[in-house]
């Protein structure tokens, strides 16, 4: 990753994450097809809702005949982490116009957020609208097209998992967390490792009593508070 922040660099930087989108997008399309969703519904979910994990949950809840209110609430729960990510990311674009901020915000994902956080580690804490917009747009289009192609292929491929594509998403997060770990000079390696250990432990513990999405949120917030405390103790 270079410190350059142009639209072209954005296109180049987002490329590795595209594999994750294609793998999971195809998988979603196939699942949606076998769950009897129409092609229009698949496209609608991907291009309007645009929320990877929430789309899987919506599909299974529709299949199980859950009420609309429950589907809305689950979607909010799964996506509530976006409030945290958007709040973090928005700080880099305060000087941009409201319209540009809304456009960037509308297309933020786990992956483009994580990518941006990696990027600002090599640019000395700067991001640009052009760069972020390029990453967002590529992610959005690749995701939408992959899910629709998946839905069309749905009848042809019985078991896409045998090719290992479903692991692309996990691999991507492993890569992103590792790059974050070694490149965030502001927090440093030790503090980040401590936070990681705390998050993993808290997530494991809360998973026993809470829904997985709530546990994710609790572990994240807990990890941030823990990090703040450790940093404070270290400074004094």
């Amino acid at each position: 990753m270079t410190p350059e922040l142009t639209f072209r660099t954005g296109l180049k930087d987002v490329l590795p994450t595209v594999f994750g989108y294609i793998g999971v997008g195809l998988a979603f399309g196939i699942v949606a097809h076998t769950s009897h969703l129409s092609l229009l519904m698949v496209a609608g979910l991907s291009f309007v809702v645009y929320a990877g994990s929430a789309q899987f949950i919506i599909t299974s809840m529709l299949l199980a005949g859950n009420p609309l209110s429950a589907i809305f609430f689950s979607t909010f729960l799964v996506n509530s982490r976006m409030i945290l990510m958007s709040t973090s990311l928005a700080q880099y674009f305060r000087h941009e116009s409201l319209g540009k901020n809304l456009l960037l915000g509308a297309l933020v994902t786990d992956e483009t957020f994580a990518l941006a956080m990696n990027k600002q580690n090599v640019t000395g804490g700067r991001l640009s609208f052009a760069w972020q917009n390029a990453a967002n747009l590529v992610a959005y289009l690749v995701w939408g097209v992959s899910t629709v192609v998946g839905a069309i292929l749905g009848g042809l491929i019985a078991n896409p998992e045998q090719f290992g594509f479903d692991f692309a998403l996990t691999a991507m997060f492993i890569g992103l967390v590792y790059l974050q770990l070694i490149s965030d000079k502001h927090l440093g390696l030790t503090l980040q490792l401590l936070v990681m250990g705390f998050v993993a432990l808290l997530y494991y513990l809360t998973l026993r009593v809470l829904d997985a999405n709530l546990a994710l949120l609790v572990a994240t917030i807990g990890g941030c508070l823990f990090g703040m405390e450790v940093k404070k103790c270290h400074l004094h």
Partner: protein
Amino acid sequence: MSFTLTDLWVILGCGAVTLLSRVFPFALLKKFQLPAGVIDFLTFVPIAIMTALCCQSLLVVHPGHWATLNLANCLAAIPATLAGILTKSLLAVVVVGIMAMALIRYFQWG
């Protein structure tokens, strides 16, 4: 397999919920400056959230009981992590991870 009225409501409702979660902080921060404590908190969000997302895919949930390891994912995570350490390239991690998972599935190790 047809598009129903329920489908339309799901798209509109879930779309609105998701859009608001994403856009609201951007609109708010355009107007207001965050207190130093919140900014300090937010510096930990990337590492915390990415760790939690990794854990989510490495564990299998059993409601009311302790979660267990997703063995296949954990096994594939080893070469993927090594690829990251050796190359520092996201693309290498993803490609090695997918190939490792294809092998694990083929030999049914997971």
